[in-house]
């Protein structure tokens, strides 16, 4: 056994608090260690070259690199030693940066700790065995969850590349939030004009299947071979027959809140969200339907020319197999009413959210693009925009910046002037202007100069009604004065939150998410569209608040990553899996009961006995069975009980 140890300085990141050189010298003394050296940057080209040289020239049979977290560079180094002819699993990483140099200050103590961490790694690599991956066939179909602009973009890219894509959308039409927007910044081009063609492309693409009004219920399997249960919700309308003529909608006698117009208007119990909906199919909201609530009516059934209405329709579970899954579940608008009583908590009619204002500005919206006060339907003379409502506000549990509000407010301010005339007074209360995008800052400048929008630096502390106006009391921090603006209409730049139900969906897919329900990428810089679950990717605002260009860009990036994965016909499975020593198995089947992936199976041996056997391609390597087996006859490759004990001993021997 010839072990080589390589200690990284990582510039001063490690060497700053850990004596890397001294560490290398001490490591050389360890049992079975034949070579030990310190390098400035082990992950750099020269660093890796040094390791490979040492392997070849000194015939190393095991390698330990003491540097950063394995989550950072384990893959890099395994590849590195493999190229030098070593089995990649005969390599171990000692994390002396995140777990040592970065959290300590005392050089001496930190170095001592680092030394023990290295000893643990050496102990582990000493008992390591060469491992070999299995190869499994890859299912090349892709599931995209969420049919917003991000989901559509990923789907189109993948479909054009020849993969079969299924879009699952929980609403009855794709399009997402972008479909609700009027114009887009900084170009002021109509949102629908850009989006709807893409929606139609997706609908007509031979490689894309859209499952609207459906949700993902269950996901099993693993990268390359996911099994997904998709729940088709009961629309009470047979979509194979429905022709989207809207006749039912016109004739339906019962009103229902209009989600698409974010509550600005009412729609019918049977409805199609908007004329360009894709697919253009009707849905009955049973909780508002007269027939379902009072047992009389059936008007839609009578007027439907296609006989598509089906009051008996039941939801159904469809099972599909996929090789990869893309999360594109998008965003929701921050529910400001519950959190901002000082802004009237929704009680003041003429205080509306940014999204509601989008609908009001929209020519095909409930007001036909006419901007008016909800209280008296008059055109506002003074409009006040308030930024950072539900953003950068820890008192409502939203410390993060929603990143789009500054820009959409500038856009809405400009549109206000063009809708209500240049003589309209427009104020924007802001804390900081965040215009970091191509042409963004210029756009804001236009708002300030060309359109004479008055930017006031400061938060608004209170809204109250007086003399038919909404009094806006805030501050101009640059003047150092408290200010009051009597407004006709107040638009809150309500921030972005993760989509409703995002975290429970994350649990269904076993991907991690932050405290706000945004999905966690596998590395913030280097793996921004991957998750820690192989085969599951991220696109758009489900990862963090994003504007349209960023979402689309990321969506295409995601598509590329999916293609990289599915370009291969076979996938190497992780060799870190459980194996059963059948000679000691007592057939208690506890492993079968506990395995979340039902990897263990009963296997009949020649001698007629049945013993447990783990299906390599199904096992995910969690090791639950290992800890459960009463006779310890299951072992987890790469994390054997011995290797763990050896590490613990190393810690405690000193």
């Amino acid at each position, binding site marked *: 056994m010839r072990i080589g140890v390589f200690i990284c300085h990582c510039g001063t990141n490690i060497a700053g608090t850990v004596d890397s050189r001294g560490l290398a010298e001490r490591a050389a003394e360890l049992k079975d260690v034949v070579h030990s050296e310190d390098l400035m940057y082990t992950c750099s080209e020269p660093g890796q070259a040094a390791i490979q040289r040492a392997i070849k020239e000194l015939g190393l049979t095991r390698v330990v690199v003491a540097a950063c977290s394995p989550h950072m560079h384990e893959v890099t180094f395994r590849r590195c030693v493999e190229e030098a002819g070593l089995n990649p699993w005969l390599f171990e990483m000692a994390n002396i940066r995140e777990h040592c140099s970065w959290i300590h200050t005392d050089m001496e103590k930190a170095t001592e700790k680092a030394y023990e961490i290295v000893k643990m790694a050496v102990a582990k690599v000493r008992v390591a065995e060469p491992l070999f991956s299995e190869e499994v066939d890859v299912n090349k179909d892709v599931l995209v969850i969420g049919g917003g602009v991000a989901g559509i973009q990923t789907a189109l890219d993948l479909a054009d590349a020849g993969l079969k894509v299924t879009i699952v959308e929980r609403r009855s039409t794709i399009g997402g939030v972008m479909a609700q927007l009027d114009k887009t910044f900084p170009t002021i081009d109509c949102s629908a004009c850009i989006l709807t063609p893409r929606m139609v492309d997706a609908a007509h693409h031979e490689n894309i299947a859209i499952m609207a009004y459906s949700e993902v219920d269950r996901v099993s399997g693993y990268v390359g071979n996911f099994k997904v249960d998709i729940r088709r919700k009961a629309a009470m309308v047979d979509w194979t027959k429905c022709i989207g003529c809207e006749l039912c909608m016109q004739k339906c006698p019962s009103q229902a809140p209009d989600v698409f117009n974010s509550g600005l208007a009412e729609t019918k119990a049977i409805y199609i969200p908007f004329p360009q909906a894709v697919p253009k199919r009707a849905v009955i909201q049973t909780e508002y339907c007269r027939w379902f609530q009072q047992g009389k009516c059936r008007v839609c059934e009578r007027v439907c020319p296609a006989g598509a209405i089906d009051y008996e329709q039941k939801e159904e579970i469809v099972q599909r197999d996929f090789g990869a899954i893309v999360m594109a579940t998008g965003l929701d608008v921050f529910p400001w009413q519950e959190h901002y009583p*000082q802004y009237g908590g929704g009680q003041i009619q003429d205080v509306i959210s940014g999204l509601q204002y989008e609908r009001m500005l929209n020519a095909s919206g409930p007001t036909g693009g006419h901007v008016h006060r909800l209280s008296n339907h008059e055109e506002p003379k003074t409009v006040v925009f308030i930024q*950072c409502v539900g953003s*950068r*506000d*820890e*008192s*409502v549990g939203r410390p993060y910046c929603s990143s789009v509000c500054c820009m959409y407010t500038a856009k809405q301010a400009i549109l206000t002037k063009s809708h209500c005339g240049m003589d309209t007074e427009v104020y924007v209360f802001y*804390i900081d202007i965040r215009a970091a995008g191509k042409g963004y800052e210029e756009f804001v400048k236009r708002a300030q100069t060309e359109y004479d929008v008055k930017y006031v*630096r*400061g*938060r*608004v*502390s*209170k809204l109250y009604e007086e003399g038919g106006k909404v009094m806006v*009391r*805030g*501050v*101009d*921090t640059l003047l*150092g*004065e*408290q*200010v009051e603006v009597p407004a006709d209409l107040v638009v809150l730049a309500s921030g972005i939150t993760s989509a409703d139900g995002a975290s429970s969906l994350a649990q269904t897919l076993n991907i991690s998410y932050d405290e706000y329900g945004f999905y966690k990428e596998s590395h913030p810089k280097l793996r921004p569209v991957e998750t820690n679950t192989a085969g599951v990717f991220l696109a758009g605002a489900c990862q963090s608040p994003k504007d349209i260009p960023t979402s689309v860009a990321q969506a295409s990036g995601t598509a590329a990553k999916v293609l990289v994965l599915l370009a291969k016909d076979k996938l190497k499975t992780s060799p870190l899996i459980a194996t059963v020593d059948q000679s000691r198995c007592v057939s208690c089947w506890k492993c079968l009961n506990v395995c979340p992936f039902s990897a263990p199976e009963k296997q009949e041996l020649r001698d007629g006995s049945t013993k447990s056997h783990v299906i390599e391609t199904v096992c995910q390597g969690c090791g639950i069975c290992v800890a459960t087996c009463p006779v310890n006859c299951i072992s987890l490759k790469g994390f054997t009980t011995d290797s763990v004990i050896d590490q613990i001993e190393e810690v405690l021997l000193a």
Partner: protein
Amino acid sequence: MRYDAEVAASLREKILRKVKTDVAACYQCGNCTGSCPAVFTFDYTPNQVMRMLQVGLVEEVLCSRSVQLCVQCLTCTARCPREIDVAGVFEDLKTVAYARQLDVPEDARVFNKAFLDNVARFGRLSEAFFLLRYNLASRHLLNDAELGLPMIAKGKVQLLPRKARGTNEVARIYRKAVERARSQEKVS
């Protein structure tokens, strides 16, 4: 002007310890100023005070009218998006100014002194007597004078304040506390 990093740092630490709030967290949105009812009497708006504390302009703040005239309505604290206890900071600064016997703006100091002397003297606040003392001291002799007679008429004033039992203890508390505070300020 130049910033004094050391003063700022020690000040921040001090406020962290005494008020359990971090002025460094202030990002100058001005919500406190927008909410403040007394801001019209201030020489520095609350967010300016926060800023001055961040860069260590403590002397200026301690002698400011703002600190003296804050009415402790707590609106700033209630609405701060960074959950800073602004009112708490003001209260603390005021006590420091008092202990240091700094030359704070006229009326406020007089008001407080008149009040506390009154309490120390009668154990309870005798409002009429207090107002009288205040007006004499602040030379606003006729301040609220028009209210005097009607108040008497409506029996809202007690003309000859009587000592409450426990007055002596209050006086003692008052004396001990003040001595203690001043000695401490000398130390620090």
